[in-house]
């Protein structure tokens, strides 16, 4: 069960610094669709949980614990890598 970054993200970036498999990438700054947040690649996330406690805005949840009001983030994180810029934004 991958971790998910929700819309609570304030683009602090501490999550990406601690991710051992480097599967967290910032959306390109200013991009209307992706620029608001960092994104986790659900296919590469190893579910180690290093990112969640680093987040100053508590924006990161395990997929099965994402609050109902942020559920759309699960698909968004996936879409950033499937349809959006993904790793090329690094």
């Amino acid at each position: 069960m991958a971790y998910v970054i929700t819309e609570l993200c304030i683009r602090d970036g501490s999550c990406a610094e601690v991710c051992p498999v480097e599967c967290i990438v910032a959306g390109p700054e200013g991009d209307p669709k992706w620029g608001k947040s960092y994104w986790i690649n659900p296919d590469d996330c190893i579910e180690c949980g290093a990112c969640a406690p680093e987040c100053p805005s508590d924006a990161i949840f395990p997929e099965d614990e994402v609050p109902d009001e942020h559920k759309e983030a699960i698909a968004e994180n996936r879409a950033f890598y499937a349809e959006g810029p993904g790793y090329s934004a690094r």
Partner: protein
Amino acid sequence: MDVSAKDYASDQKPTWCPGCGDYGILNAVKQGLAAAGLAPHQVLIVSGIGCGSKLPDYARVNGFMTLHGRPLPVATGAKLANHGLKVIAVHGDGDSMGLGMGHFIHAARRNIGIVDLIQNNQIYGLTKGQYSPTSEQGVVTSTSPDGSFEQAANPLALALAAGATFAARGFAGDAKALADLIAVAVRHRGYAVVDILQPCVTFNKRNTYDWFRERVYDLAGTGHDPSDRVAAFAKALEWGERIPTGIFYEVQLPSYEEQVAALQEGPLVKRQLEKLTPEQVEGLLAEFV
């Protein structure tokens, strides 16, 4: 068989530290087994004692947590009792290179059909950071305050010297490449060891993800010949500024279980037990008096 890594999902949540290399290894085990087309019921994972040895609990497979250092004898017994199972031993560097080192040498020598995954974080993590058999010389820990005086045990060099037919190294920070290695290892005939470089984010402050990432490289594409045992041994001794990963050595030789006549009709567990006659029992007892 159509299998996905999700089929290996367990309802147990790991208790490992956030960022632990064990997560990458667990992920790679699930991915690798699925890629090899193995279903959970076809797999037995035997572990010892250590942080990483909790792995069987976190995957939906047949699991057996044994004593510290003893996964290989138990896995050997399981393989002989049911050689239809894919038997995997998972244990740390303390378990495999400390108390279990004798078993390791003999498993390699026997070419018994076991995949041996060594979660090598170069420290005793579960007991809070004592130096282990694979700790680098000079490393300062709670039990080596002046730096370790001992040379590090070298799992791959030992395995190759003992006659291992498959020797590889992966990195927990590259779960995809590790999954690929595991998928190859589980298809190997006989004993297959994978030394897995694994950061311990809490107690090993030296061999970190970044430390490894600056050093590891893939043997594939370097011209290394995995059928050349001497070349594999030379690569096994390489450590420091550059650390090789990938398949060091791979040859196909008959496994131990393939050579046991009694196993040729199929796994022992599938055989019908025949009731002995009183005469047969008496004959057996007579052998002991």
